[in-house]
Protein backbone atom coordinates (compact mmCIF):
# COMPACT_ATOMS: atom_id res chain seq x y z
CA UNK A 1 0.00 0.00 0.00
CA UNK A 2 1.30 3.43 -0.94
CA UNK A 3 0.59 6.61 0.95
CA UNK A 4 -1.87 8.98 -0.72
CA UNK A 5 -0.49 12.40 -1.57
CA UNK A 6 -3.60 14.11 -0.12
CA UNK A 7 -6.19 12.91 2.34
CA UNK A 8 -9.50 11.90 0.71
CA UNK A 9 -12.13 14.55 1.37
CA UNK A 10 -15.83 15.03 0.82
CA UNK A 11 -17.97 18.15 0.62
CA UNK A 12 -20.74 18.10 3.21
CA UNK A 13 -23.93 20.15 2.84
CA UNK A 14 -26.08 21.15 5.81
CA UNK A 15 -29.69 22.28 5.68
CA UNK A 16 -32.36 23.65 7.97
CA UNK A 17 -31.78 22.88 11.66
CA UNK A 18 -28.47 21.10 10.91
CA UNK A 19 -27.16 24.14 9.01
CA UNK A 20 -28.16 26.41 11.89
CA UNK A 21 -26.57 24.08 14.43
CA UNK A 22 -23.38 23.73 12.37
CA UNK A 23 -23.27 27.45 11.68
CA UNK A 24 -22.40 27.01 7.98
CA UNK A 25 -24.09 25.65 4.84
CA UNK A 26 -21.22 23.40 3.74
CA UNK A 27 -17.63 22.40 4.42
CA UNK A 28 -14.85 20.11 3.27
CA UNK A 29 -14.23 17.17 5.59
CA UNK A 30 -11.41 14.64 5.52
CA UNK A 31 -12.60 11.06 5.29
CA UNK A 32 -11.58 8.31 7.63
CA UNK A 33 -10.97 4.75 6.42
CA UNK A 34 -14.09 2.93 5.13
CA UNK A 35 -16.35 5.58 6.46
CA UNK A 36 -20.06 5.35 5.69
CA UNK A 37 -22.26 8.41 5.40
CA UNK A 38 -23.86 7.48 8.73
CA UNK A 39 -20.40 7.14 10.35
CA UNK A 40 -19.58 10.62 9.10
CA UNK A 41 -22.80 11.98 10.57
CA UNK A 42 -21.98 10.42 13.95
CA UNK A 43 -18.51 11.97 13.86
CA UNK A 44 -19.77 15.47 12.94
CA UNK A 45 -22.88 15.44 15.18
CA UNK A 46 -21.88 13.29 18.16
CA UNK A 47 -24.71 14.84 20.18
CA UNK A 48 -27.31 13.29 17.81
CA UNK A 49 -28.12 9.92 16.38
CA UNK A 50 -29.57 9.86 12.86
CA UNK A 51 -32.64 8.17 14.28
CA UNK A 52 -33.23 10.84 16.94
CA UNK A 53 -33.40 13.45 14.16
CA UNK A 54 -34.97 11.17 11.53
CA UNK A 55 -32.16 12.37 9.33
CA UNK A 56 -31.67 10.85 5.88
CA UNK A 57 -28.67 10.88 3.58
CA UNK A 58 -27.75 11.83 0.06
CA UNK A 59 -24.50 11.15 -1.74
CA UNK A 60 -23.83 12.88 -5.03
CA UNK A 61 -27.32 14.38 -5.03
CA UNK A 62 -29.15 11.08 -4.68
CA UNK A 63 -30.98 9.70 -1.64
CA UNK A 64 -29.10 6.70 -0.20
CA UNK A 65 -28.91 4.49 2.86
CA UNK A 66 -26.73 5.36 5.84
CA UNK A 67 -24.43 2.43 5.13
CA UNK A 68 -23.26 3.94 1.80
CA UNK A 69 -19.45 4.11 1.84
CA UNK A 70 -17.89 7.44 0.97
CA UNK A 71 -15.14 8.10 -1.57
CA UNK A 72 -12.82 10.99 -2.22
CA UNK A 73 -14.67 13.86 -3.87
CA UNK A 74 -18.19 12.76 -2.94
CA UNK A 75 -20.84 15.38 -2.32
CA UNK A 76 -22.58 14.45 0.92
CA UNK A 77 -25.80 15.87 2.36
CA UNK A 78 -27.62 15.15 5.57
CA UNK A 79 -31.34 15.40 4.94
CA UNK A 80 -33.52 16.38 7.91
CA UNK A 81 -37.23 15.59 7.49
CA UNK A 82 -38.29 17.55 4.40
CA UNK A 83 -41.07 20.12 4.37
CA UNK A 84 -41.58 21.05 0.74
CA UNK A 85 -44.99 21.48 -0.79
Amino acid at each position, binding site marked *: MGYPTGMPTVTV*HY*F*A*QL*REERGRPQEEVELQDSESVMDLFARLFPQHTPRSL*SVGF*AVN*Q*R*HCSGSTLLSDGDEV*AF*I*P*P*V*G*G*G
Partner: protein
Amino acid sequence: MFLLQKEVLDPSPLRRAVSDPGHGALLLFEGVTRDHFEGRRVTHLEYEAYAAMALLEMERIAADALLKWPTVKIAIAHRTGPVGLGETSLIVAVGAPHRPEGYEANRFVLEAIKKRLPVWKKEVYEDGQEWKANA
Protein backbone atom coordinates in the same frame (compact mmCIF):
# COMPACT_ATOMS: atom_id res chain seq x y z
CA MET B 1 -40.32 22.12 -16.92
CA PHE B 2 -38.81 22.00 -13.44
CA LEU B 3 -38.31 25.24 -11.57
CA LEU B 4 -36.95 26.36 -8.23
CA GLN B 5 -37.23 30.10 -7.82
CA LYS B 6 -37.33 32.95 -5.34
CA GLU B 7 -39.84 34.88 -7.46
CA VAL B 8 -43.63 34.56 -7.17
CA LEU B 9 -44.87 31.44 -8.96
CA ASP B 10 -47.03 31.87 -12.07
CA PRO B 11 -49.02 28.84 -13.26
CA SER B 12 -49.19 30.01 -16.90
CA PRO B 13 -45.82 28.72 -18.15
CA LEU B 14 -46.35 25.37 -16.43
CA ARG B 15 -49.81 25.13 -17.94
CA ARG B 16 -48.33 25.72 -21.37
CA ALA B 17 -45.50 23.25 -20.75
CA VAL B 18 -47.94 20.38 -20.15
CA SER B 19 -50.39 21.25 -22.95
CA ASP B 20 -50.78 18.86 -25.85
CA PRO B 21 -53.31 18.67 -28.70
CA GLY B 22 -54.16 15.10 -27.65
CA HIS B 23 -54.89 16.05 -24.03
CA GLY B 24 -58.38 16.45 -22.63
CA ALA B 25 -57.51 17.13 -18.98
CA LEU B 26 -55.28 19.54 -17.14
CA LEU B 27 -54.74 19.20 -13.39
CA LEU B 28 -53.08 21.96 -11.46
CA PHE B 29 -52.22 21.63 -7.79
CA GLU B 30 -51.08 24.68 -5.88
CA GLY B 31 -49.72 24.57 -2.37
CA VAL B 32 -50.58 27.80 -0.58
CA THR B 33 -49.16 29.13 2.68
CA ARG B 34 -51.73 29.10 5.49
CA ASP B 35 -52.16 31.67 8.21
CA HIS B 36 -52.01 29.27 11.13
CA PHE B 37 -50.59 25.98 12.30
CA GLU B 38 -52.16 24.20 15.27
CA GLY B 39 -53.57 27.46 16.50
CA ARG B 40 -50.36 29.49 16.19
CA ARG B 41 -50.51 32.50 13.88
CA VAL B 42 -48.00 32.29 11.05
CA THR B 43 -46.59 35.59 9.75
CA HIS B 44 -44.67 34.07 6.83
CA LEU B 45 -42.70 31.03 5.75
CA GLU B 46 -39.22 30.45 4.45
CA TYR B 47 -38.25 27.60 2.17
CA GLU B 48 -34.68 26.37 1.94
CA ALA B 49 -33.68 23.97 -0.83
CA TYR B 50 -30.80 21.73 -1.72
CA ALA B 51 -31.18 23.31 -5.12
CA ALA B 52 -29.18 21.07 -7.45
CA MET B 53 -30.57 17.89 -5.93
CA ALA B 54 -34.12 19.27 -5.71
CA LEU B 55 -34.19 19.84 -9.48
CA LEU B 56 -32.85 16.30 -10.03
CA GLU B 57 -35.49 14.90 -7.67
CA MET B 58 -38.24 16.72 -9.58
CA GLU B 59 -36.98 15.02 -12.75
CA ARG B 60 -36.78 11.64 -11.03
CA ILE B 61 -40.28 11.95 -9.58
CA ALA B 62 -41.66 12.93 -12.99
CA ALA B 63 -39.82 9.99 -14.58
CA ASP B 64 -41.37 7.63 -12.01
CA ALA B 65 -44.83 9.02 -12.80
CA LEU B 66 -44.24 8.64 -16.55
CA LEU B 67 -43.45 4.96 -16.04
CA LYS B 68 -46.92 4.55 -14.53
CA TRP B 69 -48.79 7.01 -16.83
CA PRO B 70 -46.78 7.23 -20.05
CA THR B 71 -49.18 9.62 -21.79
CA VAL B 72 -49.07 12.50 -19.30
CA LYS B 73 -46.89 15.60 -19.24
CA ILE B 74 -45.59 16.99 -15.94
CA ALA B 75 -44.22 20.31 -14.77
CA ILE B 76 -43.19 21.25 -11.22
CA ALA B 77 -42.21 24.56 -9.66
CA HIS B 78 -41.21 25.22 -6.03
CA ARG B 79 -40.58 28.55 -4.45
CA THR B 80 -37.58 29.24 -2.19
CA GLY B 81 -36.81 31.95 0.33
CA PRO B 82 -39.48 33.95 2.17
CA VAL B 83 -43.09 33.37 1.07
CA GLY B 84 -45.96 35.55 2.27
CA LEU B 85 -49.30 34.26 3.53
CA GLY B 86 -51.70 33.11 0.84
CA GLU B 87 -48.91 32.87 -1.71
CA THR B 88 -48.19 29.76 -3.75
CA SER B 89 -45.20 27.71 -2.65
CA LEU B 90 -45.60 24.79 -5.07
CA ILE B 91 -47.27 24.09 -8.39
CA VAL B 92 -47.70 20.62 -9.86
CA ALA B 93 -49.14 20.72 -13.38
CA VAL B 94 -50.21 17.56 -15.22
CA GLY B 95 -51.68 17.36 -18.70
CA ALA B 96 -53.31 14.06 -19.65
CA PRO B 97 -55.44 12.54 -22.39
CA HIS B 98 -58.18 11.72 -19.85
CA ARG B 99 -59.08 12.80 -16.35
CA PRO B 100 -58.28 9.66 -14.31
CA GLU B 101 -54.58 9.63 -15.13
CA GLY B 102 -54.51 13.41 -14.68
CA TYR B 103 -55.75 13.21 -11.09
CA GLU B 104 -53.70 10.13 -10.27
CA ALA B 105 -50.42 11.34 -11.72
CA ASN B 106 -50.81 14.76 -10.08
CA ARG B 107 -51.43 13.22 -6.68
CA PHE B 108 -48.58 10.73 -7.14
CA VAL B 109 -46.15 13.56 -7.94
CA LEU B 110 -47.35 15.64 -5.01
CA GLU B 111 -47.00 12.80 -2.51
CA ALA B 112 -43.49 12.06 -3.80
CA ILE B 113 -42.56 15.73 -3.47
CA LYS B 114 -43.79 15.79 0.13
CA LYS B 115 -41.63 12.77 0.87
CA ARG B 116 -38.50 13.14 -1.24
CA LEU B 117 -37.91 16.69 -2.39
CA PRO B 118 -34.95 18.14 -0.45
CA VAL B 119 -36.73 21.33 0.57
CA TRP B 120 -37.29 22.55 4.11
CA LYS B 121 -39.92 24.86 5.52
CA LYS B 122 -39.50 27.24 8.41
CA GLU B 123 -42.71 28.63 9.84
CA VAL B 124 -42.24 32.05 11.36
CA TYR B 125 -44.77 32.92 14.09
CA GLU B 126 -45.36 36.15 15.92
CA ASP B 127 -43.46 34.64 18.86
CA GLY B 128 -40.87 32.32 17.33
CA GLN B 129 -40.08 29.99 14.47
CA GLU B 130 -39.85 26.30 13.73
CA TRP B 131 -38.70 23.92 10.98
CA LYS B 132 -41.81 21.98 9.99
CA ALA B 133 -41.56 18.56 8.41
CA ASN B 134 -44.31 17.06 6.30
CA ALA B 135 -46.51 14.61 8.16
